[in-house]
């Protein structure tokens, strides 16, 4: 193909967008709305996932050490705990800390510190946070094997419940994204078919003057890609803008519930590229290739 022909076909695609501006506008409107819905559902899913993750991370286990250990032995046990794969946070709690905590809780009834100061019944322990509660069983097993560890206390049932909740939430939220994406594909494809149907006579004329299928398809492809990319840009702007506003609002207006769920949404800088790249890919594939294939049946002239 000559460069002048290529430039002509690209120009023709852009010219067609202007010439059929009403249909182009309708088509881009549908594409934008669909992308916004899919983007919103995706962000919703990501945040639900992050919140469930956060709640899961709050699930703490306690490693009790045997009585009468020296400081070196306690430190060595702490190092060994840190070295267990899957452990992300280790905090030492001395018998005195435990006694003080209980004393504070029961201060209106008794004075525990005075009673047990010389004979503290509590053991030294480590508070442990694991990265994935789904792996709690093997981690507990590893922790129990460490020298000078007396026992490990972990709410296994609660951990398993979190894992189940997270799995269900993931299925529901990503299912929602998939359904919305599918609906969008059908709606966008129908809009494109409608646009192409409105111009079937034009396609027929092109065929009769000797245009090849590629020559006819290319401007439609350019038109589809351009409208897809414009829709992607518009929906990226709307989704990212609205999400950032929501993010700021959520951060600046904390509630008990929001604090329980981590106090913040997933920051925009961690998700914007998924949204923009996803929309661009969606716009290119759906609108470009969708348009070029929608004209197939009108080419059989």
């Amino acid at each position, binding site marked *: 193909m*000559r460069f002048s022909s290529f430039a002509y076909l690209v120009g023709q695609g852009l010219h067609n967008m202007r010439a059929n501006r009403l249909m182009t506008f309708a088509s881009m409107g549908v594409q934008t709305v669909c992308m916004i819905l899919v983007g919103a559902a995706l962000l919703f899913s990501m945040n639900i996932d992050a919140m469930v993750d956060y709640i899961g991370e709050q699930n703490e286990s306690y490693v009790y050490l045997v009585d009468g250990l020296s400081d070196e032995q306690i430190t060595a046990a702490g190092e060994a705990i840190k070295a267990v794969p899957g452990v992300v946070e280790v905090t030492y709690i001395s018998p005195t800390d435990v006694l003080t905590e209980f004393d504070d809780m029961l201060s209106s009834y008794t004075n525990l510190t005075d009673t047990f100061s010389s004979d503290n019944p509590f053991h030294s322990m480590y508070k442990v946070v694991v990265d994935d509660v789904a792996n709690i069983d093997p981690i507990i097993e590893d922790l129990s094997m460490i020298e000078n560890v007396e026992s490990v206390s972990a709410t296994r049932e609660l951990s398993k419940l979190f894992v189940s909740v997270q799995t269900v939430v993931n299925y529901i939220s990503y299912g929602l994204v998939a359904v919305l994406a599918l609906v969008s594909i059908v709606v966008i494809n129908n809009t494109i078919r409608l646009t192409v149907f409105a111009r079937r006579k034009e396609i027929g004329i092109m065929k009769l003057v000797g*245009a090849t299928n590629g020559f006819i398809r290319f401007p439609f492809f350019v038109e589809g890609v351009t409208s897809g990319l414009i829709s992607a840009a518009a929906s990226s702007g709307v989704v990212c803008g609205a999400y950032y506003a929501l993010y700021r609002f959520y951060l600046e207006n904390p509630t008990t519930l929001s604090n329980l769920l981590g106090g913040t949404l997933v920051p925009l800088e961690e998700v914007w590229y998924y949204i923009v790249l996803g929309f661009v890919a969606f716009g290119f594939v759906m609108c470009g290739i969708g348009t070029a294939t929608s004209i197939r049946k009108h080419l059989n002239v």
Partner: protein
Amino acid sequence: MIQFEHVSKVYETQSDENVALEDINIQIEEGEFVFILGHSGAGKSTFLKLMLMEEKPTKGKVFINGQDLTRLRRRKVPYMRRQMGVVFQDFRLIPTMTVYENVAFAMRVTNISSKTIKNRVPFALSLVGLEDKMDRLPDELSGGEQQRVAVARALAHGPKLIIADEPTGNIDPEMSMDIMQLFEAINKVHITVVVVTHEHELVQKLAQKYNNRVITLAHGQVASDTSHPEVAEMYEARMREMGMEPTYL
């Protein structure tokens, strides 16, 4: 140039068979001006569709420039169509393109350079007297003017064959004569012209004046051919054999 060899075309429906053309034999030489005349249902449209490769014959062969259209691969069809210029009753101009762009489009599909297009489009439009309306959209022109744009488009890429389907069907009688005279002028430069029409009176007037060949189709058969008088006798004999009265128009 154009050859129909024992061509039949049957359209099959769920319950019926409709014979559109039956054992047609026609030969049109290069540089001829031929009218294909016939009433509605005579087989004119099918004849045209076979030449434009919109349909394939049920039986027989169609040749254009020695190329057997029945054996032509689908992807080669556009290249074959570029060897001809086609004018339609409903003009078939692209409404979103200006007059200039409509004419240029037929040249662009054949990969002609932009420089040549810039030179040739105004020339083609001046041949049909529309060089001053290049920037108009088709809807801003009269029926006759739109048909002249269609003629300019058919001529622009320099084909050796022009096919016109009822070119005067949508324009007034005075303009019809102008369009036909335009075709006569085109034929003078050795371009083969085939005009398919049902306008019997107009054809008679022109054929007498310019001595054109007239092929009449009736009941899907060649009923007469002014270049081959024996065809009419054969048609009449065939119709009587079938117990039918020979009719022409």
